[in-house]
């Protein structure tokens, strides 16, 4: 189960749009997933998640080393296909690592 957090700046549009597109991509790739919303201010301390996608540039790092990807292209509609490709690639890498027990 891929555990994804989508974090944005308290907006409704951004969380909804980004979550929707990422869920779609994961469904099509047949990857089981659970998506949790969060605010950008919370991402430093998030735990028990496999990845965080944020909708605004941020220099914050997560204390648990959870990878962070910046998904603003999903709102802009520019570079979104490439983002999704890169996203899925990393999701698969993370899931692989989990299965091989290196987590």
């Amino acid at each position, binding site marked *: 189960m891929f555990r994804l957090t989508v974090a944005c700046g*308290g*907006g409704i*549009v951004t969380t909804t749009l980004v979550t929707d597109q990422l869920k779609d991509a994961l469904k099509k790739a047949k990857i089981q997933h659970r998506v949790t919303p969060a605010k950008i201010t919370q991402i430093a301390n998030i735990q028990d998640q496999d990845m965080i996608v944020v909708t*605004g540039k941020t220099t914050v790092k997560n204390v648990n080393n959870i990878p962070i990807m910046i998904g603003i292209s999903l709102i802009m509609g520019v570079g979104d296909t490439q983002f999704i490709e890169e996203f899925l690639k990393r999701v698969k890498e993370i899931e692989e690592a989990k299965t091989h027990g290196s987590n």
Partner: protein
Amino acid sequence: MSVSSKMCTHEDLVLIKLDASDRRQVIGEMAERVLSKGLITREFIDDVIEREQEYPTGLEFEIPIAIPHIGVGCNRSFLSLATLKTPVDFESMDGSEKILPVEIVVLFGITNQDDQVDLLKKFIFAFQEVENLKKIRAAGEPAEIIAMLDVLLDDCLDFTV
């Protein structure tokens, strides 16, 4: 889509060539109109201005736009649009602190984001197209913009307000 999940809008909520010097004034003027239609509470106005400060909504399309919005203090989902007489500075949503000379502002409120995913998608896809933005910017009358929105946001708008 049921009426309650449609966004209401009206010619009165469309402002052409709004003359304003800063984003607070733009949002304030638009919001007062929305308030006068009973679609929001007064708190909404302060909250949405505050939210724009903390979490800016400028989008750097070929024609920069801003989409200030919140989901609280909103009696019905609504959309208000303003084209600006001269560009007004808004900060970019991407967190880079870049200042954008925004020409079109869309102020809106959503009562239930889960129900309204399709509407939000149509909304953002419509504004991603520079041709749509050009036409909106060139409009001389609110009725023209309403007609365009009706097409772009196919079946998501409710004009009974």
